[in-house]
């Protein structure tokens, strides 16, 4: 939001731990009297009024192609046409304190990507990375590489921060809608947050192993050889 509109971010109320409980975005283009009128109308303002960020603090654009959903839509259309798969990795970094942290995290992720335009926001502290053309194995490797870079950065910080990651891959034979695709990655991210650090994805191995020929199937196949012929078609 800060990228498209120059705003000032004003803390409206602060808790006992001095953390803002609510913020008010003010259009920086308003003149002084306009801003003061708005601030006067907010009863919880007072000594707690504090400018958190201004137009000069805008985050640099992550993507010029719009929201994450638009980006995903574009990539899924490519999957349909090219038959190339596409992965989506969501990285959530907790323990973030303020805009400066956010920007540093974003820079680390962006620098780890071969194409910076693959990066988008998904919520305040979660980043989305599109992995076009990568199947599950390659996407896992790439996701692991990015995750390790972020972990390295997070572990070096003095504050306690952690990173969780969820991933999904879409293949041409089954292309979900953009919202569903994002939700699939988000559900894996949720697993990561609940079950511990690391990258989580749909249990592809389970799906792969489900194609394994079982002992029972084999027994039925070979019963023909031991028992003789079956009814003719």
């Amino acid at each position: 939001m800060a990228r498209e509109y120059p705003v000032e971010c004003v803390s409206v109320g602060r808790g006992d731990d001095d953390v803002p409980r609510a913020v008010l975005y003010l259009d920086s283009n308003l003149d002084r009297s306009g801003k003061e009128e708005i601030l006067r109308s907010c009863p919880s303002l007072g000594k707690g009024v504090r400018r958190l960020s201004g137009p000069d603090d805008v985050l640099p654009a992550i993507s010029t192609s719009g929201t994450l959903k638009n980006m995903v839509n574009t990539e899924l259309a490519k999957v349909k046409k090219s038959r190339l798969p596409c992965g989506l990795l969501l990285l959530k970094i907790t323990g973030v304190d303020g805009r400066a942290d956010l920007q540093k995290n974003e820079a680390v992720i962006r620098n780890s990507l071969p194409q910076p335009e693959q990066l988008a926001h998904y919520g305040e502290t979660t980043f989305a990375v599109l992995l076009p053309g990568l199947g599950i194995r390659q996407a896992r490797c790439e996701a692991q590489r990015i995750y390790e870079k972020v972990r390295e950065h997070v572990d070096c910080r003095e504050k306690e921060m952690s990173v969780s990651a969820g991933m999904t891959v879409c293949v041409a034979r089954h292309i979900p809608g953009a919202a569903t695709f994002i939700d699939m990655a988000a559900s894996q991210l949720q697993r990561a947050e609940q079950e511990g650090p690391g990258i989580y994805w749909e249990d592809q191995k389970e799906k792969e192993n489900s194609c394994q020929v079982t002992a029972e199937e084999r027994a039925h196949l070979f019963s023909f050889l031991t028992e003789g012929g079956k009814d003719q078609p």
Partner: protein
Amino acid sequence: MKAENKATPKIVSISSGKGGVGKTSITVNLATALAGQGKKVLLIDGDLGLANVDVILGLNVRHTIRETVEEGRDPSATLVEILPGFSVLPASSGVPEMANLSYEEQAFLTDALERIIGDFDYVLVDTAAGIGDSVLWFNEWADVNFIILSPDPTAMTDAYALIKVLQGRYGKKNFHLIVNQVKSKKEGQEVYANMKTVLEKFLGIIPGYQGAIPQDSAVARAVRSQRPFFMSQPGSRASLAIKDICERLLSS
């Protein structure tokens, strides 16, 4: 399902799981039979790194699918015409990289193939053995999946496994079985019946039966002479079986 429109040929993959059950020989002779019925046939050697179609046909190829993938060469310039209406797109031999194409290369190859197949009524793909990426990919691309097996537990298991993977991972359901190297028609029917029972019980698949090809010395002789037995020995038992399979394919 007939190929009613030249722009949308019927793509048939011929696979087996196990190697050595006769895929290439059957594919080459089936293509020959289809061409003999006036159909325009493209035979793609899908064993991209260990080509055999050109060997069975006695071709001396200069250009292969490899050049399409690696150099962007127009695949139509790589086609070899065997008979009027019957062309082959040869693969390369001794090139491991071709047997392990990346997603991008596979997608590029698909695009390239789809640009040329519109001129044909039938596209037959002789895939490699096994369940590697290229096998699965060609089978996914095809409209109909022919699975070759022989009355041998390893061939039956591998054929079943291939079908299971294609169904489980790609949702394929249109399978047709050809039983090769049988001692009699009855044996072929028994093998088919058994496979059908197991496929239906465990996977909910009812495969079609394209027919059985008998053990026939004409086949080995034809391979050694590098000429399709359908052409060199049209009256052989194997040729008559191929003729039946061809007619079933044409009427489906």
